[in-house]
């Protein structure tokens, strides 16, 4: 929590505009240059809040995915949700012309971000319902559901590649730019869209934390503890996938947070979900905020997509975890 507060404060004063600490402080109290006040309140604060909310959304989504599927390698994108969102966005940008890239003074922008986000989320929702529907009607085990999700993800990626193959240079650039995880797209409106489902899902996950603990005992035991396994799994996977779908739709692909946060927190605090869910959420927020600071500062005046930073940092950490993981997790 302390790390989150420190990073929150630091993030307010770190950016690519070259604003001094003193000017930043003045702007925070709405004193001084109007441009600085706009940068603080309309660009930096929404971006910081986006990092916190998206970090929480991805982390709790990954935690629940791993528990419900009984698979430590599951992540928010496991059900093919991210790939479906990317396909939706590509259809909106390339086929429907919903997002032509524009460049004003070096600032890259998607001309119609809401259409693209709606298409991305629609496809994410469709993919989730398709995989969970198949799992429900064919009575798949959780591990099979995950495999179906992986296969569907590959299928969506194939379709995306075909659409991109026939795109012209401009729309292809737009589509590729969109897929970069970038918190710079955040506005107060988009934050609200993500905040409400994230908060509600977090409350749901914590309220039912003892049921998630019971799932660790195995299906036979969990069932005799009164849990309606099919319904509980369905709702949990639906909420987790929706959080991932929404995040990808609004900010593009931000990898590894959903995989790393539960993996690291399980090693630090154990598997008691009433603690694990909260600590994973905080860890997700801290890591994404930290990665966003790096994205803004690593190349001086140029802001990199945070999705690239999370993957570059996350992948080696994940490999180290795998190499040093305790015997109990093998």
């Amino acid at each position, binding site marked *: 929590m302390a790390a989150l507060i420190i990073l929150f404060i630091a993030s307010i004063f770190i950016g690519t505009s070259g604003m001094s600490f003193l000017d930043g402080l003045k702007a925070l109290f709405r004193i001084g240059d109007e441009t600085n006040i706009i940068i603080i309140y309309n660009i930096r604060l929404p971006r910081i809040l986006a990092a916190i909310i998206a970090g929480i959304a991805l982390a709790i989504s990954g935690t629940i995915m791993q528990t419900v599927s009984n698979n430590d390698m599951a992540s928010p994108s496991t059900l093919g949700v991210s790939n479906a969102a990317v396909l939706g966005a590509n259809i909106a940008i390339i086929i429907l012309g919903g997002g032509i890239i524009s460049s004003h003074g070096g600032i890259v922008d998607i001309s119609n971000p809401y259409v693209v986000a709606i298409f991305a989320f629609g496809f994410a929702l469709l993919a989730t319902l398709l995989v969970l529907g198949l799992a429900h009607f064919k009575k798949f085990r959780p591990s099979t559901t995950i495999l179906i999700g992986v296969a569907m993800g590959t299928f969506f990626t194939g379709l995306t590649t075909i659409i991109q193959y026939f795109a012209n240079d401009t729309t292809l650039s737009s589509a590729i730019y969109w897929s970069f995880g970038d918190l710079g797209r955040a506005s107060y409106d988009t934050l609200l869209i993500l905040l409400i489902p994230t908060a509600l899902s977090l409350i749901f996950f914590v309220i039912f934390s*003892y*049921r998630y603990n019971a799932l660790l005992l195995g299906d*036979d035991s969990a069932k*005799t*503890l009164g849990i*309606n396994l099919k319904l509980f799994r369905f709702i949990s996977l639906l909420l987790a996938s929706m959080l991932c779908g929404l995040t990808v739709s609004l900010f593009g692909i931000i990898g590894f947070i959903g995989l790393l946060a539960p993996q690291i927190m399980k090693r630090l605090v154990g598997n*008691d979900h009433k603690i694990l869910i909260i600590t994973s959420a905080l860890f997700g927020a801290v890591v994404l905020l930290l990665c966003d600071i790096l994205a803004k500062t690593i190349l001086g005046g140029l802001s990199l997509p945070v999705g690239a930073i999370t993957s570059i940092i996350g992948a080696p950490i994940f490999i180290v975890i795998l190499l040093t993981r305790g015997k*109990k997790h093998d």
Partner: protein
Amino acid sequence: MIEFKNVTFSYDKKKNVIKDVTFTLNDGECAILLGPNGVGKTTILRCILGELKPTSGTVLINNKDNKGLKNKDLSKAISFVPQNINGTDLTVSETILLGRLPSFDLFPKREDYIALNDVLNEFSLNEIKDKNTFEISGGEKQKVAIARAYIQNTSTIIFDEPTSNLDIKAQVMIASLIKKITKENKRSTLISMHDINLALSLADKLILLKDEQIYKITTPKEITSEDLETIYGIKTTIKEIDGRKVVIYE
């Protein structure tokens, strides 16, 4: 009380896994299912737990058909100790407390923690109560699983081969726990088991299975070496030592 009435189960309607099985588990009784691998012991348990739906016949739990029982209702009548106990990465206390989930639903209340303390004392688990279940032995894991089922406070506890992966010391410890649960605490227990001598020392009723059917329902006093030869196909001698029957394999 559990009444298993003329139950047949098959996965594909071609080959029966169990066929026309009928028996009753009375209140406070310890019944043990005996028979070779693949004879349908676990299938019987899974039909009672509602995981498998009988192709024909009925399973009554406290006079109610288990087809109409919700998991919630089932959890108040039956608790279950599986054969393979997962390490949960929870502490022993947290794992046992889950047995109270049907009572507390969302978060444990004061009475659930009181029940936990009682069970930790009763099962002598205080020394390891804060240990991670990954760090305890197989016998201790089994003991924790039994404590979790016990704290659920159901009239019946079902055990699926509770001693099969344990060393002799742990087997004796688990057997005495099961005896305590049935004899002192008057819970009904239904157990699938391979160890015939352990079964003879625990059971009130022995349900002998052969070729997917019940061959005979008998008692430790009445079982004969012919019965064992019929169901297992091995020669045995049954001797009585200090009033207890002991099976010697030839």
